[in-house]
């Protein structure tokens, strides 16, 4: 079979001077990635310090600007001249931003009469003879430009050529005003924004591209799946339910939580450590939470401990001179952390479940959960999902799948792949292709398949999944052991969840292995429900009779749905000579215009 959709389009013009990267710009971290057009492989680029997750932080120390890990180290030492967690402030008025993530660093200030947000820092060294350095107010746009300029430089240094364009990932709910602000901030840094793509979509693209490369020969090119992509970051978590059909992605629902991420889990460990400190030292040491610097140290260590616990069973929480000059250390094991953080950890599960509900789907409809974003390294998040979703749902995360890509790198990879696909196009062409007239498309509301089995005991064999955009073409084969004349009856499939009672639940095994005693609440003696998803044949679309099929031969059914919802069916015996041309016919469309409408 030739490739329906995969051949790369010929660029309309040679914008050969473009060197485009993929750029993931989060509130907590940024990542840059590159895909060479010849190899098509995405590669995440390390900066000069060797970091692939570059903290989105700038700090000003004695007239010098630091970025990334070096700047992050300044949060405890020089918090007011360290700018962090501003990405979501772009394009917003002062009254519309939530400053709470900035409590430990520079505080956002009002600019342009409340129209904008900025940070007041001392970016220049103290001039001789002056007691205090002059402060400057840097707008969120200016901070972004400085940050992006450094990212582009890191990429340029690595690639040995000057980067001047990027595909940038943003949350689904980034407004046009925010995109416009990011576009100009990037432009000021010498970066042309080729396209913005939603973070979860980028993560999926990055994942799929890898799968495709790994299994080019052996595996089918791609198959239809309904996927949850959960981008679990530092300060926020964003979830999307995506129908992946023939390599195209349609977002069915999204869910967001702006107060849930790795930082929420850090707080749990901070509390734990602070309480242990107070208990151990009593009045000798003041509560480290009441001192800004001590709190910052605790928070930094909490994150390091949490990362260590993603891999190991225990970690040591240790901070020099935490409070009143006392060095503090505490051993934390993973199960203790998971118990302490249980509520927060369950919030990730609930957020993901809410996205399924919003899409009007059931957990049984979900084929795959792809975990992206740094917090996805946390094994318990995947384990909790495994016990909430059925065994048929594959969970892709470092702790559940040895082949999973680093979740912290997925979005940048996807952006890099998209960048390499479109960097040869003219700007107008890219814009035209992302317009609603091109993207908004009729999608099948029901599945299409065959009515199979004897009369009275019919079942439904699925060929085209619901939520598939049209036009679409799918081919299926079915063996006819007895041969003879067969009836090919094409119908819509109506899916429903069947529930039966059984003694033992068929839940996803990965979930409840070693920690059965943890979730005692869920365990009662009621008979377990076994839920399964079944398709039943609904409305019949067409019938074809294929005569004289050889014993044991295969019958091939090709279903094509046109843009106007007309269905063409071709039924033939596989391997039969051309003189036996098979049966071909059409069902007229419902007259939906080629371009659909929103």
């Amino acid at each position, binding site marked *: 079979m030739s490739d329906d959709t995969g051949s790369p389009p010929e660029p309309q013009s040679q914008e050969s001077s473009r060197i485009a990267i993929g750029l993931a710009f989060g509130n907590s971290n940024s990542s840059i990635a590159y895909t060479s057009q010849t190899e098509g492989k995405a590669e995440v680029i390390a900066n000069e310090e060797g970091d692939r997750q570059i903290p989105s932080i700038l700090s000003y120390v004695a007239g010098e600007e630091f970025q990334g890990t070096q700047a992050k180290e300044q949060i405890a030492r020089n918090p007011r001249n360290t700018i962090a967690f501003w990405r979501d402030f772009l394009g917003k008025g002062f009254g519309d931003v939530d400053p709470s993530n900035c409590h430990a660093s520079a505080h956002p200030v009002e600019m342009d009469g409340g129209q904008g947000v900025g940070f007041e820092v001392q970016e220049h060294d103290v001039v001789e003879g002056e007691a205090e350095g002059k402060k400057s107010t840097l707008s969120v746009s200016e901070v972004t430009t400085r940050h992006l300029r450094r990212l582009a430089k890191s990429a340029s240094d690595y690639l040995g050529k000057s980067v001047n364009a990027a595909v940038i990932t943003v949350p689904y709910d980034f407004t046009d005003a925010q995109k416009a602000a990011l576009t100009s901030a990037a432009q000021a840094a010498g970066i042309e924004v080729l396209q913005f793509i939603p973070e979860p979509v*980028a993560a999926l693209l990055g994942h799929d591209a890898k799968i495709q490369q790994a299994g080019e020969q052996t595996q089918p090119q791609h198959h239809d799946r309904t996927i949850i992509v959960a981008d679990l970051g530092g300060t926020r978590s964003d979830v999307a339910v995506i129908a992946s059909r023939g390599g195209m992605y349609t977002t069915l629902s999204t869910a967001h939580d702006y107060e849930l991420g790795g930082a929420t889990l850090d707080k749990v460990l901070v509390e734990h450590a602070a309480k242990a400190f107070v208990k151990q030292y009593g009045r000798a040491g003041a509560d480290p939470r009441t001192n800004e610097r001590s709190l910052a140290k605790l928070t930094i260590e909490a994150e390091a401990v949490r990362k260590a616990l993603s891999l190991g069973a225990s970690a040591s929480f240790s901070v020099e001179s935490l409070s009143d000059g006392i060095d503090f250390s505490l051993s934390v094991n993973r199960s203790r952390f998971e118990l302490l953080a249980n509520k927060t950890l369950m919030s990730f599960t609930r957020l993901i479940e809410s996205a399924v509900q919003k899409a009007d789907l059931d957990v049984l409809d979900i084929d795959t959960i792809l975990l992206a974003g740094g917090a996805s390294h946390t094994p318990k998040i995947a384990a909790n999902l495994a016990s909430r979703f059925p065994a048929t749902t594959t969970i892709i995360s470092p702790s559940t799948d040895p082949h999973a890509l680093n979740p912290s790198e997925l979005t940048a990879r996807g952006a890099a792949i998209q960048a390499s696909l479109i960097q040869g196009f003219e700007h107008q062409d890219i814009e035209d292709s992302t317009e609603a007239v091109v993207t908004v498309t009729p999608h099948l509301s029901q599945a299409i398949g065959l009515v199979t089995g004897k009369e009275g005991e019919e079942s439904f064999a699925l060929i085209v999944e619901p939520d598939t955009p049209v036009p679409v073409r799918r081919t299926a084969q079915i063996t006819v052991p007895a041969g003879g004349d067969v009836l090919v009856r094409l119908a819509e499939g109506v899916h429903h969840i069947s529930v039966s009672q059984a003694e033992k639940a068929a839940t996803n095994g990965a979930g409840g292995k070693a920690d059965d005693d943890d979730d005692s609440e869920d365990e009662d003696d009621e008979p377990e429900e076994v839920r399964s998803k079944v398709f039943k044949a609904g409305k019949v679309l067409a019938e074809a009779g294929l005569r004289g099929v050889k014993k044991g031969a295969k019958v091939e059914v090709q279903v094509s749905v046109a843009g106007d919802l007309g269905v063409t069916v071709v039924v033939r015996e596989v391997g039969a000579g051309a003189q036996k041309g098979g049966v071909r016919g059409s069902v007229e469309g419902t007259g939906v215009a080629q371009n659909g409408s929103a």
Partner: protein
Amino acid sequence: MATLQLAAALPSLPSDWSAEKDFKAVSPLSPPTSRAIEPVGPHFLAHARRKRHKRTFSEDER
């Protein structure tokens, strides 16, 4: 797309079944839902090209 292999049995053709050219259109598809495809990836680009040039799959393959 790869060809699907269905594990099921086709019913045999009832002896009284007949249709012109052995094909019978019964009813049209249910009304579709209008949704936006994410404009990313190689498959979307091919879709966009077909749509903008109003080409079908087979024309596109030539």
